[in-house]
């Protein structure tokens, strides 16, 4: 039996009842224009103008947030059992090292100058451990209590502490501090704070001469 030759007389390999235009469209890249090397990027301004649309809006609260730490501070989660391969141990170790550094610096500073050490503790808690200001202030107050007690004992055994003056000055000051904190809610601070800083400078000069 002789084989017949097959003529490819069909334009498109599609069903014959498809509309005849199928397959006759221009190729997909027909509209592209060649770009010469070194051609100026005249689209750049519009890209720059629209870049804001493409990225997140400026979020001032953006920044690393340690969700696990936050949860623990809110007491929402007990000690973690997450299978993180010991990563939390590394972080706890890291936190502990930073706490040790802060504590050492605070104790040294506090007794060297006879002040509480909040000036050191509050910024360090915020910088190194990411505390927010109120939590840093509250925690530093509690820490200062221990530090000042230790300092009082350390100086006391050397006979340097005048407990009479300490009581005469310290007890009224405790009452005054409560009043001062209450006043802070009611009075405008700015001018007074500037005056106070001038007073501090004056006292510093009086100590220098």
């Amino acid at each position, binding site marked *: 039996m002789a084989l017949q030759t097959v003529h490819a007389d069909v334009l498109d390999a599609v069903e014959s009842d498809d509309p005849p235009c199928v397959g006759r469209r221009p190729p997909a890249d027909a509209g592209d224009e060649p770009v010469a090397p070194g051609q100026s990027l005249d689209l750049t301004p519009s890209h720059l103008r629209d870049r804001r649309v493409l990225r997140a809006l400026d979020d001032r609260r953006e920044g690393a947030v340690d969700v696990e730490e936050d949860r623990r501070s809110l007491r929402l989660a007990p000690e973690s059992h997450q299978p993180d391969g010991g990563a939390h141990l590394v972080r706890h170790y890291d936190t*502990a090292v930073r*706490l040790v550094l*802060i*504590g*050492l610096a*605070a*104790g*040294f500073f*506090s*007794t*060297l*100058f*006879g*002040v509480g050490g909040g*000036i050191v503790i509050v910024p360090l808690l915020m910088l190194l*451990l990411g505390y927010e200001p109120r939590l840093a*202030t*509250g*925690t*530093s*107050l*509690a820490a*200062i*209590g*221990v530090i*000042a007690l*230790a*300092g*009082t004992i*350390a*100086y006391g055994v*050397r006979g*340097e502490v005048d*407990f009479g*003056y*300490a009581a*005469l*000055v*310290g*007890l*009224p*000051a405790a009452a*005054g*501090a409560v*009043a*001062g904190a209450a*006043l*802070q809610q009611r*009075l405008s601070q700015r001018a007074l*704070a*500037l005056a*106070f*800083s001038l007073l501090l*400078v004056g*006292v*510093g*000069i*009086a*100590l*220098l001469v």
Partner: protein
Amino acid sequence: MGAVIAAIALGLLAGVAAGFFGVGGGILFVPTLVLAFGLGQLEAEATSLAAILPTVAAGAWRQHRYGNVQWRTAGMLGVVAVVGVELGVRVADSLPEDVLQRLFALLLFGVAAQVALSALRS
């Protein structure tokens, strides 16, 4: 008697200022004790640490009620700080008092700058 009344009045004032401006009491107690009552710088610093205790206790209690105290962190800081405390006492003890006083004056300038800056920024 006059000295007693003056000490009470200055203590009260220092406390109000400390609470109002958010600085520790010690920064004011030390110069008060030195300039008004003639204590030596070292003795004033030692006494100031003892005088801080009631203020700090009251402040910590209030902050605790606001929920602003992390006691574990505070405890760890305090325990570790004991080493720093001993170091600080030794250094303060070994420094001449006028050097210590000048260092304290520098500290006052620093705090003054901090208070002024935060007032201007707010």
